[in-house]
């Protein structure tokens, strides 16, 4: 029993130590998330810009950059969003949330399409991209993947055999079918 207590204390200490290290190291990053969670996205955006300036080599750079795109998307500044998206997708094509970056791009093009400015070929190429990965459904009818961004948005992609659904903050963002 005594031994178990000691073990528990050691585990707690180790965990606390690790948490402290990470808190001190990425305090600023956590601050951004806190700002976003409180609904102050503009402040979060400003902090993200500063963070990128001060920590160009941080492992959080892709996530922060993704959230900068999100910010431009949220304030309907699509030109800036596309410009950032282009840079993001070129730099991090294999990033786990790149599929959601493509989702944002697709959504922006859809909005442009309503204004007849976007070419249908571009949308089709993007749709091809969503369906480019192989999928093997053995027991389930679909497979899904989730992501929460620094701006506190949740994204979810659900892959069916012949369609893909993308959700943002629990709402259907868009759906594409074969």
């Amino acid at each position, binding site marked *: 029993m005594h031994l178990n207590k000691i073990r528990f204390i050691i585990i707690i200490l180790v965990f606390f130590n690790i948490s402290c290290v990470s808190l001190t190291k990425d305090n600023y990053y956590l601050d951004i998330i806190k700002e976003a969670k409180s609904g102050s996205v503009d402040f979060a955006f400003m902090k993200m810009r500063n963070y990128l300036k001060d920590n160009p080599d941080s492992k959080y750079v892709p996530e922060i950059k993704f959230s900068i795109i999100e910010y431009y998307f949220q304030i309907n500044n699509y030109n800036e969003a596309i410009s950032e998206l282009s840079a993001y997708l070129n730099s991090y094509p294999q990033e786990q949330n790149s599929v959601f970056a493509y989702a944002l791009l697709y959504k922006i093009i859809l909005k442009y399409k309503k204004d007849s400015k976007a070419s249908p070929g571009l949308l*089709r190429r993007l749709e*091809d991209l969503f369906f480019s*990965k192989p*999928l093997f*459904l*053995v*027991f389930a009818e679909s497979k899904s993947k989730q992501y929460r961004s620094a701006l506190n948005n949740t994204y979810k992609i659900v892959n069916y055999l*012949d369609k893909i659904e993308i959700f943002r903050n629990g709402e259907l963002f868009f759906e594409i079918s074969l």
Partner: protein
Amino acid sequence: MKSHYNRKIIFLITFLAVLFLLQTAISHLINNSKDKILNYANSTFGYSFELEDLSFSLLRGLHIKGAALTRNNYDKKIIFIKDAFISLKILPLFFKTLDIKVHINELSLFIKREEEGINTQIIFSEINKKMPKHKPSLDISIEKTRIITGDNPNLSIILKDSKIRQESQSLKMLTLLEFDYRLAPDSYLAHLFSDNYIRQTIKCLVQAHINGDNLHLDYILLNIEGNEIIGAGLNKDFTGKNPYLYINFMHSMVLLNKLTVMKRNFKAQGNVYFSLGLKGRMDAPSINISSELSHCSFVIAKNRLFNIEELQGKIEYQNNLINLNNASLRINNVHLNIHRLIAGLSVEPELKLELSFPQEFFDYNSLPLNKLRVVFEGRLKQFLSGDLGVSALYIRDGRDLDMQAHFNGINLSFQDAEKNLTVGSIELIKNDDKIQKISLRDLKSQVYLEKNRIDLKNISVAAYDNSLSGELKISLTDPAALNLRLKGQGLDLKSVMQDTNISDKLLSGRLDVEIVFDNLQKEFLQGNCYIKNGSMDLNMLGSIIALPALKNTKFQNMHADFSISKQLVSLKDLEMHSPDIMLGLSWNTNHKVDGELKLSMASRLLKQYAAFKKLLNIAKFKKDYVDFSFLLAGTSRGNTRILWQKGEFKAKLKENLPNWVQKRIEKELDKIVDSL
């Protein structure tokens, strides 16, 4: 009064008698001197002159009959005058001017190209040197001049009613030229012209003046049946053996329907703006014709096979080659662009043709093409021989696929009613993400050419260790139709797959195939294939669904129907049978892919693999065969998405496997799939 009248009559009779006696005396004198004259001419000019008869007429002057000139060493006459009168004009004599009038009924010139130049020009040059420098004025009229060319017996040129006036240093000639060229029956041009003759009359007027050794052609007017062409030029060193000619005709418009040669042979209509230039030594001047065709129409070939309309473009003739560039036209109502056509006029001329079909043609005929370009390079001999290349951009799935066909070593006997066609090698290539091709050899067929229709019957062609046979029908009526039927038996599957690049999984076997292409059908390509005693690599299934590695699965037979439409590439009812595996597949591809794969595998075979043995035991599956059914989906360029459909084995697995195991299996498979 009466005696006065009688005196007049007596005087007249006496005068006429004197004249007659004088004429007889002079004729006698001249005739007696004929030999002397001939000897003088022979010795002076170095040529052999012959004269049949020489007489004198007070009214018409010196009468020459049957005058001929031959080279001393040759027997053949070069110049022959059938009948001529030479007289002196009296009036100019009072002004101390010698003005000679010559009238020739018929003159024949036998023209031949010799080493130094043209024989008649050489004779003119040599005689001219021995003539006095001061020449009398000449007034020559020739009723008919026949120009017979030794080099080309099929060519006849006749000048009619020629009038030539030479006065001091000026020269004027007016004549009617009749050009007549008989096409050799075996020449390819004979097939294009409805007559066997090219006949045309041209009125010519030439005004020139002599300046030293040069004859300046100040004004040349050619009137071709109402079409007037004006030119000017220079005959440099015109008294030399081989003068240099430089003649240019101004840019002129010719109405084709006014030209007999075009009207008779081609029912030609339209306008041609053309300029003509002639440059070089007289014996071999180069002729340049540059012309713009505007709204021209022609009916070509003896049987009026080709109806050409709305021909517009630039046509040039140079160095015995016709060159048509950037032309657009309709042949039998089919729109075409000719980028380049080079056709020689020699006996075995070269032929280069590069043409394409405009977009309107594809739109009108609902053809899913963006480009169709044909290039032929060859020669016309007894056969039309050469190489043909066809390239097309075929629209599929919103993008262009590069399709090419190369027909090398073509020989077509175009002269016979039953035209035999042989082709050394054929290669059909589709260049997409991967290169797919079909290679054929030694094609033999009979071509039947009718207006708006080309049929290739009895096609036989060597292919993949065996042969294909069939027929091709092309109709150019509205809409254009192409129908090809090919049947092959016992083709070597391995080499077919290597070339067509359809699948590297079909390893061996003998393939029977039947293909029907009909551009008017919705499914424009349909076919079926039957493979006997083959082998297949089914390891692809192993890598995805962990089935055993079946790298060389033998099967007795496999059958599939396939079709291609504008929207869909479809593989229907593919069935494969082997003792351990039965496979059924249907597969459609357009932008998206959908299909169904049914597999029935022997449990005995599956149990050879530990993982499957375990799964079969867990599922308590006791049957001899396990049935799998998969739904397939995806995009044509993406990876396949697979859903394992409900079935007995799957149901039993789901029933007996805990959820976490199922999720683990899914996860492991995801890893495999991600690594693909």
